[in-house]
């Protein structure tokens, strides 16, 4: 399984990877990108099963990243992990084709729940 983690914070990418392992994805191949533009470049060349992305990032936001992915025909399961958690952000995420929006801070349980639904 190929999972792409996109966040401009190296520390948060590390935390997401740690939670992925705790959530049962220890054997997954985890790729990383620091913004949406870098994530899009990886998505064009790698067969991804799941993308976990921050919302606010330089170069290309998570929402723009998702919109670009979908406009290029990529249907990869996509989840936001972000501190933006108001209903309007959730609505925008779902309208753009996200499977879920997980609010930071997250714990292992909420992380597992979101991923479980998205990858069922």
């Amino acid at each position, binding site marked *: 399984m190929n999972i792409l983690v996109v966040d401009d914070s190296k520390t948060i990418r590390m935390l997401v990877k740690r939670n992925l392992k705790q959530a049962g994805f220890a054997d997954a191949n985890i790729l990383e990108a620091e913004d949406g533009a870098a994530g899009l470049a990886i998505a064009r060349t790698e067969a991804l099963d799941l993308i976990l992305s921050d919302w606010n990032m330089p170069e290309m936001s998570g929402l723009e990243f998702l919109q670009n992915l979908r406009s290029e025909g990529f249907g990869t399961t996509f989840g936001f992990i972000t501190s933006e958690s*108001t209903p309007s952000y959730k609505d925008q995420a779902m309208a753009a084709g996200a499977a879920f929006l997980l609010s*930071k*801070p997250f714990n292992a349980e909420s992380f597992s729940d979101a991923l479980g639904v998205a990858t069922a």
Partner: protein
Amino acid sequence: MAEFFGALLGLGTAASKVSPAQIENDGAHVIGTYHDDLGRIAALVTADLPFAASAGASLAMIPASAARDDVKDGSIDENLLENFREVCNVAASLLNTPHTPHLTLQDVWATDHPDLPVEVWDVLAGASKRREFAVTIEGYDDGRLGIVIR
């Protein structure tokens, strides 16, 4: 507050409300500035050096001794400051509700930084709401965190 930091840091935390401390331009505090959609500083997160260093270290599982060293030196190093920036970034979720202006973290500053916006002192002096908490993070030194609304 304790629940927020427990989820973020993955460690046991406790928080209790305390009276806000005086903040000076002496580097003893670190401040996160939050802008509204008009680019105005609308809120601050304040942390004393022990909390900023402890939270920054615990987020990345850096030993508590590194945070203590920074406190002894009187300034937070770049690595822990970067991690504390992420704590402040996530703390935006404490400030944003469906019924208030949308705020995003603009930057994080030590209070003796020469480029700290002067506006910060106006916000501190004229805050409409200010809360401060003594926060304990399991395995790290205690510190204080504040939330200031313009």
